[in-house]
């Protein structure tokens, strides 16, 4: 589909992309500038700070009531575990939907997708009370626990994740498993040893999407996590901006910059899987 570019064509392409990058990165650069600016406002000052300082970054790690480093670690931990489990659950479900024929297969998947479109306005209260109840009977799994929070995230594991994976699995020829099963392997062994390795790209895709999704989420953790030491990064950030009257932008911006790093790291290291991963899953047949 592509052919060599002429010089004007080349220039045009690069220009367009650079324009787009400006649009994409402008707000980010603004946050970065605010994190270095001594004041506490975001927009009163010039784009390039006159007296850049690292004070806000230092403040982040020096307030005992706001253990930012701990919050970051909590976020990484929760998102990491939730994403791993999500990938596992989605893979299991996708395998069943792809390989087995049973009644209600297609409708079931459709129902799954549509049910998740229910507006989440009031789900929070119900989930809060549910976890409260669970916590009364199963100690480690209730309110203010990371395990409880992860469990809530797992509720969304089946859905578009499963659909994407199913599509991908569909493109893996069955002969591979069939020959393994003739040799005496069970379905599950075929799943573990043949399908999963081949599906590494799509597994990485779902992992990244789940990680980013759970990492940026602040609604659920702010309701379910009540102790400061259990907060995730997003919840802690909210403390900074929900001060009674004004936003402490300096510290807030510094926190944003640092908080975005784990995501970027995860993303950059798994980036190559993303591209080839979505290819096979997308096409049926």
């Amino acid at each position: 589909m592509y052919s060599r570019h002429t010089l004007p064509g080349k220039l045009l392409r690069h220009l367009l992309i650079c324009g787009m990058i400006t649009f994409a990165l402008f707000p980010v650069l603004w946050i970065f500038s605010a994190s270095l600016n001594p004041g506490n406002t975001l927009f009163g000052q010039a784009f390039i700070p006159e007296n850049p300082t690292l004070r806000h970054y230092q403040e982040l790690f020096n307030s005992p009531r706001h253990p930012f480093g701990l919050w970051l670690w909590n976020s990484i931990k929760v998102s990491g575990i939730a994403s791993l489990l999500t990938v596992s659950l989605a893979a299991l479900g996708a395998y069943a939907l792809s390989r087995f024929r049973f009644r209600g297969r297609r409708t079931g998947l459709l129902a799954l997708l549509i049910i998740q479109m229910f507006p989440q306005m009031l789900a929070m209260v119900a989930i809060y009370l549910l976890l409260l109840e669970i916590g009364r009977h199963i100690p480690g799994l209730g309110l203010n626990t990371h395990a409880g929070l992860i469990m809530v995230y797992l509720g969304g594991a089946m859905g578009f994740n499963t659909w994407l994976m199913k599509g991908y699995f569909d493109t893996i020829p069955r002969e591979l498993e069939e020959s393994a099963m003739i040799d005496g392997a069970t379905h599950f062994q075929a799943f573990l040893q043949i399908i999963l390795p081949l599906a590494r790209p799509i597994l990485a895709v779902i992992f990244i999407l789940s990680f980013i999704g759970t990492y940026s989420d602040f609604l659920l953790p702010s309701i379910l996590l009540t102790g400061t030491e259990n907060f995730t990064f997003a919840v802690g950030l909210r403390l900074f901006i929900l001060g009674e009257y004004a936003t402490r932008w300096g510290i807030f911006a510094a926190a944003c910059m640092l908080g975005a790093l784990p995501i970027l790291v995860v993303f950059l290291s798994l980036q190559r899987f993303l591209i080839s991963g979505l290819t096979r899953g997308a096409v049926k047949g």
Partner: protein
Amino acid sequence: MTMTAILFKILLLGVTNALGIWAAVGLFLAGSWLPLSGLVLGLVALNFAVLSKRAYPLRYLLPGLIPFFLMVVYPIASNMAVAFTNFGTGHRLTKEQVIAHFESRFYLPEGGERFTYQAFRGPAGSLILLLTSTVTGTNYLSERGILQAVELTDPRFVYDGAEIVEINGHHRLSRRELVQIMGELQELSLQWGDEAVRLVSLAEFGVARRQYRYDPAEGVLTDLRTGIAYTPVEGIFTSVHGERLQPGFAVFIGARNFTEIITNPHISGPFFRIFTWTFLWAFLSVATTFTLGLALALLLNDPYLELRNFYRTLLIVPYAIPGFISILVWGGMLNVDFGIVNRILHDLFATKIPWFHDPLWARVAVLLVNLWLGYAYMMIVCLGALQSIPQELYEAARVDGANRIQLLGKVTLPLLLISIAPLLVGSFAFNFNNFNVIFLLTGGGPPIPGAITPAGATDILISYTYNLAFGAAGARYGFAAAVSLIIFMIIGTISAINFRLTRNLERVGESL
């Protein structure tokens, strides 16, 4: 299966069942029937899945379905239940909680006597109190909950100077210890003649009378102080003359929340306008992010373009910043007088766009921010999908003399849409309910001049109803639940139709 595998399976099932039964017993004893039945159902399904050969696929689906039912289906079900009640401000508690609340109220009658006190604790943990009336100076000893008059010369008292340090083997408690047993002290009700004496503050006991009594047989709550009787009317105890007691409790009100949606002019009036904008908003969000994402994907897919990987990495960054942060930053950047966007526009073109004050520009603003937030996802998806289109198709089309535009339109786009269509449907549904951007950026505004309803120019169904449910007079959860249900039915229907359409698309693609 090998021996170890079977043993492992049995052990796992056994442990799970053990935990389940342990929890079930707890639930049974606590009388929580709904969670109990959920747990039992789950356990049965689990055992069925593991032990039955026919339910083999269930083994793969169950681990994902259990949290799904728990965390997604259950809240939806409870949402639906709440929709038929008036749960909200003034009706937050259960009937039992309200009755308990009133029955625990005490009042101190006018002229009621007060007592200073000293407390003594015995080795077995029993408590003796010595009360001294502030009015008559008489001393009383509490024994088994009854106050009996005593003289200070009582032989049971042991003195140290002028202070009593021991009574009947019970040692005097210090102030600090008193504070620590506050909880125990506040529950005491001592009988004094035919009055009751209770702890009123850290320093005093006082005559206290119960203020309310509930008669379960008649269902009547009586104020013992005034004699007025209250019966529950829609969750609020009301007297014959119309006096209402707060708090109230949540009651079933049938389909009233739903009929209100239809009959209340505040809701039915702007409904079509808001619905139209919501639909447009979702549609344009998907259309703009998809177009931009696809355009970028096409550009970045070009093997002849230099610095592709570098560009790709930079363009992903917006997706990595948490949404609520980006939205706030955009809000500031688009400030009419002080935002950087207008400052640049003013310097270059001498104009300032009334971003949040003009309905049209406010809509542009929310779409613009949503575009910034969402193009990266679409770009990633398209990049992937583009890889899967077989090169042979392009070559065949080239041979037939197609130019670049025709290649794009006749080969790339159709095949792309087949694979991406369900994702687009999902994105449409997501944006239909995308509360975040609207709420944080414009709050639904700007207001429409002359409107009697609180619907702003950028309000979508869910943000508007959120305002109605929570921004009028306290929180109305029942109403909000009913609205959620209606919105779900709308978007569910639209999505189901769309899925049906895309399925037909697939059939077309299969023949290629």
